[in-house]
Structure formats: structure tokens, C-alpha cells
């Protein structure tokens, strides 16, 4: 029932109320998923055109090489799924859908994101994962309502500074790209809860990228990280820290200040010891240390320091 109210309010009362609703947290967040039971989902443009207020269109698995020309007639479209087609180029029709809140382009063949993405200012969720995207434009800064940005499995080597303007972002998935650095503006994403950076080309993790007061999940597994900055401690709400398959020889002392940490994966690094003070990680329940040259005495120390934590050596 809630999503129905949400959709109707956004239409009736306009942008201001919609913004309020987003601030209302989980209530608004559910709008990011289509609601097939309460609002019709159409499976072709032709079908959708019969409904003057068609909001949800699902064109998954339709072997499309381009989007249907009439797509732009669906002025009220809020949810568009184009997953697993053969789309390699951007058709301008997509950028006329200014009411769009969810755009799913997963598993296509697009190579870049055009500047026109700025037209879709109401986007809340974008899924561009599993494409061949090597370029994101600065214009992404126009997407100030964006909460979820999925860019996993692409070819990105950089993220534009404009990302810092997407201040509502909660989930940023950039794993399985070719990133070796982040823009300085990344720390403007104060609402960010989940940052996925695994399987990239990071060699270090700079302190200037680490200032996310609401971050709960940070995944940097399978990079080549040999340095993690002391500023990791600023992520006060961090519950999950995934650092497996890197080249860490030491951890910053700051890691022991992550009082909320539940899961810490350090498997397959070069750690011989953990910092003093790990006993401060009182909430830590799971610690993965397999694949590290840790001495037996250090193992004993770690186990004693973390009596409530299951440690895997």
C-alpha cells in the first residue's frame, strides 16, 4: 500500500512533497523497487500506450538493439527495465522520460553514459552493471535524488567529481572496474551506507577518501592495496569491512576504533600481526585471517583479545 501513496503524492503535490518523502527514509526508499501488484507493469510499449498514465515498463530479454520509438510517449513512466537486451547505443527517447525514477540497463553493451543523463533528474536508482562503460560524465551531478548507483562489472578507470553532488546516494557499487583512485568529492556523500570497490586496481586507500559518517559496508577486496589510511577510523558506523586478497602488511591503528564492526575480512594479505587494541572491537563477530603469515603466538593473542569473535586463520 505505501508505494501507492508515494506514487500518487509525487504526482499530485509535486517536487517539494516528494523530497520530503525521500527524507522520510525507508518509507520512500521502497519506491526504488517496482510494485507489480498494485501498479500495472507493462511488457511492451504498445500495451503501455493504452494506459495514459503507464508508470512501469519492463522490456527485459526482448533482444532489443534499440528502444522502441514510441517509448517517449510514455510521459509518466517511472520504472523502466531494459535488462539483458542488445543495447549498445543510447537512443534519445530514453532521455525524454523525465519522470523516470528507476532505470535498469544491466547486461547490455553500452560503452559510456551520455551527458543527457542529466535530463532524468528524478532518478533514484540506476543499474548500469554488466556493461562496458568506461566513461561517466560530470553531468551525473544533476542526479541529486539518486540513492542507488550500480556500476559493477564495467570498465571505469575514473569517477567524475560530479558524483559528490549526488548527496542522497546510499549505495554506490563500483566493484569489478579498473579504478585506482576516487575523486576528492566522494566524501561529500554523507549519506553513503554501502560502498563497493572490490576487484579494482587500488594500490592504496588514501585518507582523503575516507570520511563517510554513515558508511556501514566498505568492500575493497581483491585489489592490490598495501596501504590503508588511519582515517578508516572516521567511518564510525562501519559494520562490514572487506579487505581480503590485498597486499596489506600492516593495519592502521585506527581500525581498532571501529566500534560497530561486525565482520572484518583480512584473508589472503601479508599481515603478521594485528594492531594493539583490537580488543576494542567488542562487536566484532567474524574475523577472517586465513592466508596471512601470522605466528602462533599472535594467533593466541588475537583469540584472547576477541573472545566473542569467531576467528578464521
Amino acid at each position: 500500500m505505501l508505494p501507492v501513496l508515494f506514487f500518487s503524492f509525487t504526482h499530485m503535490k509535486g517536487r517539494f512533497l516528494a523530497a520530503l518523502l525521500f527524507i522520510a527514509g525507508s518509507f520512500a526508499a521502497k519506491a526504488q523497487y517496482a510494485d507489480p501488484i498494485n501498479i500495472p507493469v507493462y511488457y511492451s510499449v504498445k500495451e503501455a500506450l493504452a494506459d495514459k498514465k503507464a508508470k512501469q515498463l519492463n522490456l527485459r530479454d526482448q533482444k532489443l538493439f534499440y528502444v522502441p520509438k514510441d517509448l517517449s510517449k510514455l510521459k509518466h513512466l517511472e520504472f523502466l527495465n531494459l535488462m539483458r537486451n542488445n543495447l549498445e547505443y543510447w537512443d534519445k527517447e530514453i532521455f525524454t522520460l523525465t519522470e523516470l525514477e528507476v532505470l535498469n540497463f544491466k547486461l547490455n553493451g553500452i560503452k559510456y553514459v551520455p551527458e543527457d543523463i542529466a535530463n532524468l533528474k528524478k532518478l533514484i536508482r540506476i543499474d548500469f552493471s554488466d556493461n562496458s562503460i568506461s566513461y561517466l560524465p560530470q553531468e551525473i551531478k544533476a542526479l541529486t535524488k539518486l540513492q542507488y548507483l550500480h556500476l559493477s562489472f564495467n570498465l571505469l578507470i575514473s569517477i567524475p567529481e560530479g558524483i559528490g553532488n549526488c548527496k542522497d546516494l546510499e549505495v554506490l557499487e563500483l566493484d569489478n572496474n579498473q579504478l585506482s583512485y576516487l575523486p576528492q568529492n566522494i566524501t561529500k556523500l554523507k549519506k553513503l551506507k554501502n560502498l563497493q570497490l572490490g576487484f579494482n586496481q587500488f594500490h592504496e586507500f588514501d585518507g582523503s577518501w575516507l570520511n563517510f559518517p554513515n558508511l556501514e559496508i566498505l568492500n575493497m577486496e581483491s585489489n592490490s592495496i598495501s596501504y590503508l589510511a588511519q582515517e578508516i577510523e572516521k567511518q564510525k558506523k562501519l559494520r562490514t569491512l572487506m579487505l581480503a586478497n590485498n597486499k596489506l602488511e600492516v593495519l592502521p591503528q585506527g581500525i581498532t576504533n571501529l566500534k560497530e564492526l561486525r565482520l572484518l575480512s583480512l584473508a589472503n594479505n601479508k599481515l603478521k600481526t594485528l594492531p594493539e587494541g583490537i580488543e576494542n572491537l567488542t562487536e566484532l563477530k567474524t574475523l577472517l585471517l586465513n592466508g596471512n603469515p601470522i605466528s602462533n603466538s599472535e594467533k593466541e593473542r588475537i583469540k584472547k583479545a576477541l573472545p566473542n569473535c569467531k576467528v578464521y586463520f
Partner: protein
Amino acid sequence: MKKSLLSLCLLFSLWSFAVISFNVEPISATAPASAPEAKATPAKKEVAAKKSTAVKAAAMLPPLTPANYPLSKDSEWAYFDLGTSLDATTWAETTYDVSAWATGQGPLGYGDATKTVISYGPDSGNKYITSYFVRDLNVTLAEVADMVEFGIRRDDGVIVYVNGVEVIRDNMPAGDVNYLTHSSGIVDGADEKRFQVFHLSKTIFNEGVNRIAVEMHNRDGQSSDLGFDMYIKDAPAEFVCEEGHIGCFTSIDPTAQTTNLIIPTEHKFQLLFKQGDAYMDGSGNVPGNHDFTGYIAIEGSSEQGYLSVNHENNPGGVSIVDMHLDTDTNLWVIDNSQPVEFQNDDLVTTIRNCSGGVTPWGTIITAEENTSGGDANSDGYQDVGWLVEIDPVTAAVKDYGNNKQEKLWAMGRMNHENVVVSADGTTAYYGEDGGTNCVYKFVADTPGDLTSGTVYVLSLDTGLSSNEPTSSTATWIEVANETAEDRNNLTANAATAGGTAFSGVEDCEISPIDGKIYFTAKGLDRVYRFTDNGETVSDFETFVGGMSYEIETANGVVTEQWGDGNDNLTFDDKGNLWVLQDGGLNYIWVIRPNHSQGAPQVLLHSSMPAGSEPTGLTFTPDFKYGFFSVQHPDNGNTAQVDATFGEVNFNASASVVIANRSQLGIQAPVADFSANEVTVEEGEVVTFTDLSTNNPTSWMWTFEGGEPATSTDASPVVTYAEAGTYNVTLVSTNVAGDSEAELKEEYIIVEEALGIDTPNQLKGIVSLYPNPTKGQVTLELNDEAGNNVLVEVYDMLGRKVVVKETQSLGGTQKIDLNLTQLNGEQVFIINVTVGEKTGTYKMIKVN
């Protein structure tokens, strides 16, 4: 855990080496020997021994005791890798002493992953050609099947001896060979790891200890690798196809996709539930991308149940269809259909509901094949990427006592594809399609409860090579799943713990025949199987895939590539494995339980309509009906007739049921009929009644001697003009076709009427037979008791020749008339009077 095990092994190796150092006995294992043509003399062995190294430490283990039949893969073998010829010895015979040979666990070889590395000599550019392997095998003949299966992994050529007698020669030239003979051909790629299968009579064995001796020949001295392993077991029993069973059919001809669903001629299908249909509970239209299609029996019924259909889409979903079998029409009838609701504060949503499973306790599990991040309700669990259990009765996601609906968090978040739960409810197997591509096991704390338990990931002991396992053993590694964080990140932790990536693990199933776990790896084009021993795994092997197969169709034997995309799996009760293919030519394949890669038994069941893949086959408990879906077919497909005899079109996703023709849809009639009278007199009429089954709508009667001679009426009335005995035939027809012709021979007897006493007053009371007679005539009387009976027989001259008087006794009464003393062939007139009624009959006497 694995690491510590490894350390232990290392320690053991060092200890063994220490022992070796003090061992004064020569050892055979090791490194470079001298000239390849050199004979294996004791002196040479000692020379070799002096060069021994720690690498061959395992060789110092005591000589092998005989193994007991059957011999499994990965067994231990004595081997001789010194580069010397044994041609002049009796090395293959039981009397030959191999106690000084090195020993090691199979697979043995070099250049590829093996459990025991053997030597190729000092020169990698001129490797030893022949290596020797021996194992003694204790056989109790009474316990061995008549035919024995030898499976040999040979890279490259092999000759096998049992008690010194050659029994197998493969990839080796015919005739005399020696130590320097190269293999006939080059074995490479996946073939290096495949087991070639040979079936031999058990008479090759003696009672007691037998010597299995193997010489392996390399392709040449520059070959990069050599590999050997062997198993010996009873040959599988021949699969006997039971007429009418769903697994009993003739393969279709291989085909590219057409605009129709093609199934075997022995089968029929009925389209049940299609995208765009209105849900019967009024909640809109059925979405597309039908995936897992699970039949859940109501109280074990094969005629009433629920069909659960996943919608692999975004938005995703699950439909629950209530249905029953109409036993009159043999058609399934849908009584209700509704979507399961996932859009609420507890569950948030569901997307990409791919495959799933039916639990032994009658719930459905739908698998979310998507791990996009997000925790919209801030419950600590990411919103999607879970298995979700649904009660089909309420069509609602389960509530496990926490006053809210929940997903199966403890099983972990991943790109779920499918799950199978063991019949005792203790263990679930599942895999990740994408992400880690690992195989997982969940052991429930309480059988039947999937909300808490321990998760393990499968780790092959020696990995894959060319997509083939390099040995048959594996280990389960525990993966943390205590907290929400553990569960959200379960796969990442499984991968770092050493889980083996298989590429696209799509489905896990448990065989009802051998209890082994079978799973598909779509990206590797194979179905693997293994025996789960708890903490470890044995018998890991490729069951099917990765090659081409000979298919026996109605038009002969053809060869068809397995292709890519093996996806959903299902077993029937006979152990046939049904493999649904998303890729290749999108077939459904059926693999017989006696199949092996070396002796294939593969059938081609069906071809999906253009643009589609088959998904989610399940069966009714009696295995008469199979339900699957046709996912995302092209909208240009054309109409075809299903079991309803109506036209259906696979132009959108749809669920169907298949069955043997005799079990599904209206059947052609089985003709039968009766007549109101079967004995009449000339000129009388007979009314026929149709007794055909399956509601015929038209009839074709043939009346020999009748008028009309044919009829298409349901109840024809026929006049018989002349005396005689006549056949009647009926072919009845309905929408399903014609019946077999029902012929009743000599069904209607028409007796000659004399014109006197017409109608015969004794009709139905008196009959006389046989007629013609040789003299003994029986008069059969059916009358009430107490009437006077007078029988008078006249010859053609009017002389009364026989008279009999008696009383009727009631019921059937036989009166004998003896005409034998009356000479010659002639006609008699017999007058019969019973009480007040009379009848006259003509009787012919013949010699």
C-alpha cells in the same frame, strides 16, 4: 582450516623424509635413471636410489596390500617410472615382485594436476615413453556382476593386463609393442581427464587376488604431460524402459528452434498458465519470464496440487496456481491463480526469481538471482539476493515466529539460482550463478528448518583442467553465517576460504538411485556429480556434457553436440536426469541412470519454440506429469494444437504440463458395442448399442449380411434377411482420433424361418444345436417347471422318426435327440410343443 591441514601434511612429509634418510633399503622412486632402453636390474635400481629426493618421500610407504573390489578412482598404485624397459620381464604377472616399486595415489602422472607426480626422467625434451602401474585386487567372484566396467583415464596410450593377460588396449598400435612404442594418437584437452570405459566379462578374474597391470605410453618424448587413473566396478545394469513411463520415449530429431514446441510422439502437452492471462483473484495480469515451475502436491496427490511459477524479472515475483486433473478429460484445470506479495516493509521486494525448489515439507523456495545492494528497511539484511520460502496454501512468504515475513537469511546472500533439500530435511545444496560460482551446502540445526544451520562451500582437492576434474575428491569448508554481516557477505568469505569456482552453478539435485549430488555448471557446459561424505566428497566426476552424443531417433542414429547452457536439472523416479538447456539449441535432454561419459545413454526430449528456453521441470509424485515453462519465446511463433485439441501459441512465456499420450487429454475411443438380440430369424431386426469409451462423436459400423451394410448412426437398426452367422465391426471416433476397429466375429446368428408358426412361439425358450448335426442333437429348454414337453422329429417324407415326451423341470434343461441311426444326409423337421406353445425347426444332418 585448510591452511592448517596443509601445514600438517608438510610436517608429515618432512617426517617421512627423515625416515627415508635412515633407511638403508634401496627405493625405486625417483629421479633420473640412465638410458631408457636399460633393463630394470637390481643394480640399476640401487643407482637410482642414491639420487632419491624428498619429492618422492611418499614412495617409502610400505608395499600396497591388495585392494578389495570394486576399485575406486584415486586409489593407490605401485608404479615404476625409472625409464627402463620391463619388456623382458614378467612384470604384469602376479608372481612379479613389485614391493620395491614406488606407490602413490591416483591420478598419477606429470604436467597436469595429479595427486602423485611421477618422473619423466632427466631430459624434458626426451621424456620416458613408458611408465608402469600395478595394483593387486581381491575379488570374490560371487559378488561381482557378470560384466565388469573398467574406466581408464589415459594420457596417452594404455595396455591393461589382468593376471598377465592383456584385456584392454587403447590408443596403442596393434601387434607387438615395446617400451619405446609411442601411443597411436595424441590425447589432449578435456580428453586427458576423461575415463574411457570398457565392459569385460568377469571371467577375466580369478577368485582371490588378481593383478591389474598397466603400461602407459606417451605420445612422444616431447609430450608435456602424462596421466593415469583407473576404476573397476560392476558394469551398470541395462536400463529397461517401462512402456508408458514419462521417461520412455523416442528422441526427437535434432533441430534448430522452430516456431513450435516439439516433443516426442509418445508425449502430449497442455498449455496451462501464460503471461498476460488474468490472475483469477483479480490482481491484474500474469507477468512474464516464467522460470522455476514447481508442482506441490496436496496431500501427496498427483491429481490436485499447486503450481508455483517464478518470474525471473524486475519486478520479480512468484505466481501460485491451484489446479486439479479432470479425470474425465485427462486435462488439468486451473481453479485459482494469484501472485505472492513481496512488497511490504519486512521483505521490501523480490527480483529476478530464477529457479528454486520444493521442500520435502511442501513449501516452495524461490531464488533471487540478484545481489544489487540496498537495505531499504534498515533491518541489517540487504534487500535482495536470498532464498525465500513460500507456503503455497496461503501463497505467502513464511513467517518464522518473529512476527514478520523473512527471507532465508542463514543460507546466505548470493546470485541464487536453485536449491534442493534432502528428503530428511537436514541438508540443502545450492550454487551461485555468477559471483563466486561456488557450490554450497547448508546443514540445518533442526531438520526441516532452514532458518539456522551451518554453511559450507565445496573446494576441489585438485581443481579443474579443461573443465574436467583432475581428481575425484573434494572438501567442504565452513563459511561464517552467524551475523547479518556474515550472511550479507557469505560468498566473498566462501571464495577467500578456497571455494572452487565452477562458472554458473545453476542447479543441484539429489539422485533417487545413487544418492549422489548432481549440479550444473552452465559456463563449463557440464553436469558434475559427487558423493557427499559429510566433511569430504568423493566420486567427483563429470556426469554429462562437454562433448557430442549419439542420439537414437526414429530416423536413425545422429550425432548432436551437447552445446552450452545446461541449466535446470530434475530426476524422475527411474533415475533419468532431465536437463533443461538455456543456450545451445535449448533442448530438454534426458540422461539414463546407466549413462557414463565413456558409455553414453543420452536422449533428446524436446525443442523449445524460437527465442525461448525451458525452465524448472518438476513432476507429480506418481511421475506421470511433468511441469515446466517456456521462458521468453518470440512473439512471432505460430499456433499449434495441445492436448485440449485447441490451438495455442508460444508467443509469450507459458507453463505447460507434459505426459505420456495415454495420460493427458481426451483419448481416442476404445470401441465396443452390443446388440439387443444376437440370435434372430430371417427378416428380423437387430438394434446395436455403442459401448465405446471416451465419448465418441462419430461411428462407422459394418454389418456383414445386414441392411444397411454400413451405418454412421450411434444406435443403428439392422435387418438380417438371410440365415447365417455374421460379423459386425465398429470404428468409433472423437476429436482425438479413431479407435481401433472392434470386430465381433460370427456375432449375429440368423436362423432360417420355416413360415410355419411364425412367429415361433418358443423363441427364447427352445434352441437346438448343433445345426447341422452328425446325429446327436441337443434341445435346450428354458421354461417354468411342470409343462408337458413333446418333441416329434419327421423326415422329408413326413414319417415320424423320433418322439420324446417329458416334463419341463424349470431352468435350463437339456434333452438329447439321437438321429445317428437315420442314414444319409437329409433334412428333418422337428416339432416341439411345450405346454400350449409350439415351434417348428429345420435340422440338417450330415455324415
